[in-house]
């Protein structure tokens, strides 16, 4: 696939009788392959999801510059489900039934994924979901390119309880009120209990999407920390509610050395809207940070900056997962020789990509990627200082052993 577009077109024009190999028909032939983009461009999740739309568009442009796939051009179909969960299902149906897309990249919140799941299963669509989530799911129509709890949440809490993380023995679980935080916290509570932390040492609080008044909760966390045991916050707060939350942490003087806060949904993009100076040392757990050294990441960042034409825009973990998923899908389509969902699904298993995080990631038969775990501390410039990473990419346990009713299920 190294031929340039012009040379390929010229070749095709020169000899129509020249039989090209089946996987490489001429670029001009066939209708374009349609790539659906199902990300909120407005509403409370726009802060996080807009960059993912741009990433998919960047990948489409990149794939076309490489000559497309199967000799066909790619074409993006963008819709805006507006952070409105039922609308996600309607837009998904529109993409599959009206626009007849071959693949869809989309969703951030688990509630939106749960909303579109029946539509993708009914119409046998193909969804790439790029965000870390709570697990307990495995649809044959979805490939999960973000982390499962054992690739993010559990290692992060383990770190907080270790020597480097401050040996926390009391944990405040703060989250937005929907399925992802509630399930993750259920897993974490079972995990903490198994590590000898009693329920009395766990605080759990939920707030609505877009919550802005954090004074009461932050002062309750302070009180919770005043019981003579090292305390840490585990945040599954999603969307723009994070901005007033971190502002309140800063204003109430909660320093990372005293009560570190580790977040699972806050990356470089979310920090771009906040004054990060009071937040230095607070943590985030992901599988990629923009500050990862190495060529794969340098290439990825250069590609993003060239596409977005703005040196100040950042990259983050879900963007990396979108990129990795897109490349795998391209490889699978080339291998299957078709964009039909069933052959592509078979071809996806075992696909490997050298991801920007610097590790080779593999799609397993459980529809999840192997991923490294990284923990970063917020630096003054809004980037992350990576203080911990696993030596290898680890396989996902999407059915958590800490959820009793599903523990026996294995992908």
């Amino acid at each position: 696939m190294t031929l340039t577009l012009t040379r390929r077109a010229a070749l095709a024009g020169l000899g129509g009788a020249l039989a090209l190999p089946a996987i490489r028909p001429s670029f001009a032939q066939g209708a374009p392959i349609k790539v659906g983009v199902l990300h909120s461009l407005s509403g409370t999740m726009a802060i996080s999801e807009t960059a993912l739309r741009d990433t998919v568009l960047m990948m489409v442009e990149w794939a076309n510059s490489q000559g497309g796939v199967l000799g066909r051009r790619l074409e993006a179909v963008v819709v805006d489900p507006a952070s409105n969960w039922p609308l996600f299902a309607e837009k998904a149906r529109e993409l599959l039934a009206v626009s007849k897309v071959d693949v869809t990249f989309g969703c951030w919140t688990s509630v939106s994924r749960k909303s579109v799941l029946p539509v993708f299963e009914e119409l046998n669509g193909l969804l790439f979901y790029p965000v870390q989530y709570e697990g307990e799911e495995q649809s044959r129509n979805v490939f999960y390119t973000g982390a499962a709890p054992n690739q993010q949440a559990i290692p992060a809490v383990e770190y907080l309880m270790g020597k480097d993380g401050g040996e926390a023995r009391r944990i405040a679980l703060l989250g937005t009120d929907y399925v992802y935080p509630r399930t993750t916290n259920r897993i974490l509570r079972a995990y903490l209990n198994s590590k000898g932390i009693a329920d009395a040492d766990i605080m759990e609080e939920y707030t609505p999407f877009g919550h802005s008044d954090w004074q009461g909760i932050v002062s309750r966390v302070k009180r919770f920390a005043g019981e003579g045991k090292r305390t840490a916050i585990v945040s599954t707060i999603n969307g723009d509610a994070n901005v007033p939350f971190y502002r309140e942490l800063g204003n109430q003087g909660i320093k990372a050395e005293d009560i570190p806060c580790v977040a699972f949904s806050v990356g470089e993009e979310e920090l771009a809207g906040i004054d990060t100076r009071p937040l230095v040392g607070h943590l985030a757990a992901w599988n990629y940070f923009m500050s990862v050294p190495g060529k794969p990441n340098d290439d990825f960042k250069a590609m993003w900056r060239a596409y977005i034409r703005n040196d100040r825009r950042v990259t983050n973990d879900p963007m990396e997962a979108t990129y990795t998923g897109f490349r795998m899908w391209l490889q699978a389509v080339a291998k299957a020789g078709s964009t039909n969902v069933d052959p592509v699904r078979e071809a996806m298993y075992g696909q490997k990509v050298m991801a920007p995080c610097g590790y080779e990631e593999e799609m397993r038969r459980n529809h999840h990627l192997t991923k490294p775990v990284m923990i970063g501390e917020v630096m003054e410039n809004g980037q992350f200082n990576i203080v911990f990473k696993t030596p290898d990419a680890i396989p996902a346990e999407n059915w958590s052993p800490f959820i009793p009713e599903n523990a026996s299920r294995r992908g």
Partner: protein
Amino acid sequence: MTRILVLLAFLASALPAAAQDAFLDALPGLAGSFGAQAEAVERLGASGDPRALPVLRALSDGRLLRRDAALLLNGADAATGAPADAAGAEPVRINNRVRAALRGALGRLQLVSANPDERLAAADAVFRSRSAENIPGLEAAIARETVPRVRDRQALALAASRLVAADPGIKRQGIATLGEASSEDARALLLEARAANPELAAEIDAAVAAIDGRLAFKRAAETLFQGLSLGSVLLLAALGLAITFGVMGVINMAHGEFVMLGAYTTFVVQEALRGIPWLLPWSLPLSVPAAFLVAGLAGAALERGLIRHLYGRPLETLLMTFGVGMILQQAVRLAFGAQNREVLSPSWMQGTLSLPGGILITQNRLWVIVFSLLVLGLAFAAIRLTRFGLEMRAVVQNRRTAATMGIRTGRVDALTFAFGSGIAGMAGVALSQIDNVSPNLGTGYIIDSFMVVVFGGVGSLVGTLVGAMGLGVLNKVIEPWAGAVLAKVAVLVVIMLFIQRRPRGLFALRGRAAEA
């Protein structure tokens, strides 16, 4: 022979000359793992060496560089002081564990600083570092200290350090002093010590109970403040509506979008002032009149262009203003993007203010309360004291009589609506400090605004004030044991029950106007 050598080596290491090199011994650890760094920082802090302070400060600010194992500071080798080229060197990275050790070590070295603020910060840092080795330094510092507020903190730090001493008598002294404090930190330290010293449990429990007694008052005061703060936000959001809906009876669903316009005006003013650094800290006060004008003009245009054609048709007004709200949202989204915009907080609005009794109040919330009361005063004065207010009240009470008296009712309608919208814009300036400046900023406040106005009594500014503050405090009192989500639900239920009993709200208007 070997024994003698070992003995000699031991003696040599105990000699003062060798001890001075504790600095050089510890320094290479800073280039090691986080664990090695933390240990090296502690040793540097304990060395008392004057060379340690600049190195530790540089490490904490990210100015200490490393190339392989060599540490560089200000273009020189940190160990030898010889000039060194900083090219290719990277800042030494630290984590929370090292940062905590640094805070303790820096605190220890700065206890005798010439600057009282530094001494205060040092005392607080030592308070948290939990090391009995700090006791002599603290005792010396307290003996010399002249500033009372610094001495108080040093006494607390000394008590905290005594708590981890070996001698139970010294421990008891520490417990007694900490028991007189009224802070959660002191309580946490005592409880930490309780687990380690079961024999002192009785004393510690008594001290903790004493702290709890004082904390109960502090917590009640803080809850009240948080309630008033939430109330002031509700008041700001609802005040404009109290005029457009309460006085004029227009159901304006685009009210939240006027608030949002005010917040974006704040952002625009801030960006415009970026070129003038000395004015930038004042961009917030300057935004207040600008936001009033922008939202007021938008309100006047809406009233003259659309609403006046729909007077007396509340359902159509509701639908039409709802549509206008969506158009405004989308227009802002197209102009500024869907991403949130960052409005900076001036330094005088950041951090906390501590009142006597250890009550902590966040500055930005305090300013919002003050601002909301100022805006309320302004609205009240405009309605009660100006000619425009007189005409407005006349038109509201009896439109036809007012018209026969020569009042141009159409103009008064437009001005009243513009005034209410302008107040919404001013609310947006304040909300930009505590919420996200995004196109859907207003949607979060529209329901709350109507709730406050209806609860307080339609047409009554005093009702709006009492309603907003009452709902704010009620919400914050319920929140600790019901959670943020249920607290909101509970408040809604309370309002529904209340409206059932008193459909006209807290402060019902009486007289002919109310019957019309």
